[in-house]
């Protein structure tokens, strides 16, 4: 996984709540068997509308998506995270994320930052009045900084450490192979098996 320490980039203001994963990446894109090439599917239906923010030249190249609450609801598709990253986003800010989406983001090094609605509103207004304005998302200091905005955010210490170091979860877990094997010897015999080996 890519490590995340701090990132400075322009804001894309997405004034919508309940941005579900079917909007982020529609189901027909899920037939691909790779982790890349999803950028054209990102918000595909909304991008048909010329007024949609991603179609506005002024926001091209923005890397920090700022959205309303309940971002990433719905399906468990990690493709939603890949699509955002393939498009170029490094961080997403919202007052509330769906659990699975948030977990998927952290696994891929896409930082999700929870900020209260008024701060989100302030970032929207800032980016709408001046699309060239830059925001810094600093995971080391756990702060979001933009002209006139300075907001701290929480992230559980363990997740933060994994992100900062860009650690691979599977290698970490495999260090515990002995505990896993020990647990397996304790498992009750009545638990089902899908096949006899």
């Amino acid at each position: 996984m890519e490590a995340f320490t701090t990132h400075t980039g322009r804001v894309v203001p997405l004034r919508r709540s309940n941005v579900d994963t079917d909007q982020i990446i529609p189901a027909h894109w899920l037939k691909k068997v790779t982790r890349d090439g999803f950028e054209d599917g990102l918000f595909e239906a909304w991008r048909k509308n010329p007024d949609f923010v991603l179609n506005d030249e002024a926001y091209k190249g923005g890397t920090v998506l700022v959205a309303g609450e309940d971002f990433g609801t719905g399906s468990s598709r990690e493709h939603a995270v890949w699509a955002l990253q393939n498009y170029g986003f490094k961080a997403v800010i919202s007052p509330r994320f769906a659990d699975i989406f948030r977990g998927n983001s952290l696994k891929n090094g896409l930082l999700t930052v929870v900020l209260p609605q008024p701060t989100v509103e302030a970032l929207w207004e800032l980016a709408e009045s001046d699309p060239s304005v830059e925001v810094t998302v600093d995971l080391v200091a756990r702060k979001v900084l933009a002209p006139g905005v300075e907001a701290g955010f929480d992230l559980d210490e363990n997740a933060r450490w994994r992100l900062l170091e860009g650690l691979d979860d599977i290698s970490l877990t495999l260090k515990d192979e002995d505990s896993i094997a020990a647990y397996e010897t304790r498992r009750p015999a009545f638990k089902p098996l899908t096949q006899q080996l």
Partner: protein
Amino acid sequence: MGRTLAEKVWGDHVVRHAEGEPDLLYIDLHLLHEVTSPQAFDGLRKNGRRVRRTDLTIATEDHNTPTLDIDKPIADPVSRTQLETLRKNCADFGVRLHPLGDDEQGVVHVVGPQLGLTQPGMTVVCGDSHTSTHGAFGALAFGIGTSQVEHVLATQTLPMAPFRTMAITVTGELPDDVTAKDLILAVIAKIGTGGGQGYVIEYRGEAIEKLSMESRMTICNMSIEAGARAGMIAPDETTFEYVRGREHAPEGADWDAAVEYWKTLRTDDDAVFDHEVVIDATQLAPFVTWGTNPGQGAPLSESVPDPASFEDEGAKLAAEKALEYMGLTAGQPLREVPVDTVFVGSCTNGRIEDLRSAAAVLEGRQVADGMRMLVVPGSVRVALQAVAEGLDKVFTAAGAEWRHAGCSMCLGMNPDQLQPGERAASTSNRNFEGRQGKGGRTHLVSPQVAAATAVLGHLASPADLSDVREPAGV
């Protein structure tokens, strides 16, 4: 202090606990399908890893599979590649697979329970958010992303941060014409699509205890639509009876040991939930959604709400956008909303009881002129049972299409899709924009409401059919 059901199941699966770190949880059953697994198998290959427990892993094909002409090559080359990729991955890594054409194929969340692989007190995961379905057995079951799928394949464990607990107590009994689907839609409308965020919900109370296993699965299935990590129901005699005798159910002494353990899986009297919600079952009525998220619903007897009536700014804006997308106007009675497509199926309502109740409404009746009704059993086993009971004949005689098992129009990854502007009454779980096809509009309903709507051509419940003719054999 006592523990909740969810805390007990969690506690029994902790492989490693360390302060300030997520618990490492052991996973009893890992379900796979074609959509969220290819990149995970790729990861294993790249790192030279194997599947740790192929005997706790099972795969089926469901999202991409066609529901017509299943003996012919799949027309869409991308869908075909994805299915072929799953077949190759399962063969290479030794995973049991039920492909299209197999008698055990079907929607992954229908297949697990019917094989008896889903049992109380287990941890069950799948790269699919509706894994919450399996919580109906008193299992801790949750959807995971593809990176986590790879993690479980490689280690049979998952590092998981602790959850909060919520009790949803449903008091009294559901009225006769109110189903589990109406109940869960009402729950989501009440607590909102983010209301369950971070929680494992335990559904309890008299109304829940009286539900069949299939209805309990409908409830737990849609926990994710309330934003919850998982939904659970304490196992009881209804659960044990459902599991008993199934292919993978324990037998003999194992059965006795299992039941003894399962009986301990109840929330202790002195356990404390982080949040509690109480719902009076007797006040519920058939429920439908009018918007583009599952929380935007109302009783069928009501009208499309006025966005101005929402106090919260965000909810107001969301309602405005939803009405625009759905082509509805505030104040329009929901019963007068015309519908051109009806879909009965999915992991929410594609089991045999769902098909029976839709068939009971359709028996001796005809779907309305110009109405397209698809009936898609959740699995091949469900289809075989329905055929044995003659339900397929009831559907086709009424003018509905009887299809092969799969996810189908629940998400339209196969050819079963809505056209732009088409409006469906659907027994599935998501009414997101374009979910069932680009520009398609979805109203979430129960199987009974779906069938009545098919007959009348507008949103309706079986009670509205009394003037058409008395239903036979109900």
